[in-house]
């Protein structure tokens, strides 16, 4: 009996990745269409810190993920970037060009501290130089690009980590792409108009301010669709970081309890800090939800650059990726 069951269980374990992604994709789309403003408000407040912790844990801190010297070296530009963000939060003038250059400095650090073929390194540095030139001319453009890009990056990292086959990559991309295209094409405009989901601000977070930050300069109809697209993509990227990617990573590690695993990766002090921050943000949100969301998003800009830096590293040296072991 057990022998007869074994293949089917194994098969189920190996179900195409798109079937694991589909429920989260559907949930992200449904929730975003049902209550886009509340999704954009509550998701960062409740899931933001845990997802940044997962980001740091799986990309940098877990034993064997990245060399210690890389973690320390990345800390310098990304901490400096966060200090600049703190300054903006407390009302000091922003330094957008310096912020982008610090993000690019993290990418350079990640590229320098890896062994890679010379031509790959040259190509990567040329791309960084081009980005630096664009950043110097239009720093806001790079920040906006990163804001939209980093949601999609999560799905790509999960596919890489889960060792998706070429067919699974195409299927997953088609699924997410179809949802995104439906949103951009206006498939949900009528539903949203009928439900009045955009009309009342969500605890101080209103559509006009979201459109101004996520789609500045675009016409009203297009801007609203871009905001909805961001709500969907953000929800999906939280699902990836908190459920799908940890599941893929667990398959490569010895089984242990969640707390033991977190303590092994973050250390006791790190785990305590993560728990406190995970509680502090929602609690602060009870006092000023939209303000807390804005502060949180401002302070965690570093993790987008961390992802870009490590992807650049793995692009030039695939054996350096955690899933290559």
């Amino acid at each position, binding site marked *: 009996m057990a022998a007869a069951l074994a293949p089917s269980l194994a098969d189920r374990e190996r179900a195409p990745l798109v079937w694991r992604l589909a429920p989260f994709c559907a949930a992200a789309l449904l929730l975003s269409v049902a209550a886009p403003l509340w999704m954009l408000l509550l998701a960062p407040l409740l899931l933001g810190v845990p997802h940044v912790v997962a980001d740091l844990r799986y990309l940098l801190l877990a034993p064997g993920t990245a060399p210690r010297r890389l973690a320390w070296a990345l800390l310098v530009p990304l901490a400096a970037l966060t200090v600049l963000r703190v300054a903006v939060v407390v009302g000091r003038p922003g330094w957008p060009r310096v912020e982008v250059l610090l993000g690019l400095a993290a990418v350079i650090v990640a590229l320098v501290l890896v062994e890679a073929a010379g031509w790959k390194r040259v190509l990567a540095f040329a791309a960084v130089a081009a980005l630096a030139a664009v950043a110097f001319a*239009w720093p806001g*453009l790079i920040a906006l*690009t990163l804001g939209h890009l980093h949601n999609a990056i999560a799905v*790509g990292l999960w596919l890489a980590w889960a060792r998706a086959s070429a067919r699974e990559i*195409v299927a997953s991309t088609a699924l997410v792409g179809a949802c995104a295209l439906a949103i951009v094409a206006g498939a949900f405009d009528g539903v949203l108009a009928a439900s009045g989901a955009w009309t009342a601000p969500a605890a101080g977070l209103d559509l006009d301010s979201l459109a101004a930050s996520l789609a500045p300069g675009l016409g*009203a109809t297009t801007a609203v669709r871009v905001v909805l697209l961001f709500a969907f993509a953000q929800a999906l990227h939280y699902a990836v970081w908190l459920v799908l990617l940890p599941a893929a990573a667990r398959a490569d590690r010895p089984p242990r309890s969640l707390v033991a695993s977190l303590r092994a990766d973050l250390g006791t002090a790190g785990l305590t800090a993560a728990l406190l921050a995970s509680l502090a943000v929602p609690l602060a949100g009870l006092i000023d939800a939209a303000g807390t969301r804005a502060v949180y998003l401002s302070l965690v800009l570093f993790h987008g650059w961390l992802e870009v830096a490590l992807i650049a590293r793995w692009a030039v040296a695939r054996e350096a990726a955690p899933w290559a072991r």
Partner: protein
Amino acid sequence: MKVLALAAVLSLPAAALHADVINPREDACRGRGAGDTCGGGGRCVQSTCGRNDYSGGVPPKSIRVSCLLCEGPANPLPVDTAAARGEARTTAAIGGAVLVTGVLFAFLWHRRSNGSRARS
């Protein structure tokens, strides 16, 4: 070639983004006070700006609210030209994000395709 074709297909949504409107002079004064410089020798001055009021749903009503606008030599561009540039930048940013996503996924797909062929 296949990678380029796939990247192009995945980047199609970028072409769906288009639009009009805005006032980038207001954006130049975001986070600044009246009288502050706003790049190139301009100053932020009190004025009125257009806003979209979504309380009645989409499409929104246009309303005017008090705001700061960048005025002076910092603003050599006619508003229409500046608006077109603001729109172009946002389209470039979002289009760029979609394009990079397409390239990354195509790159991943290409590696896995080669890996499968190498194993078989």
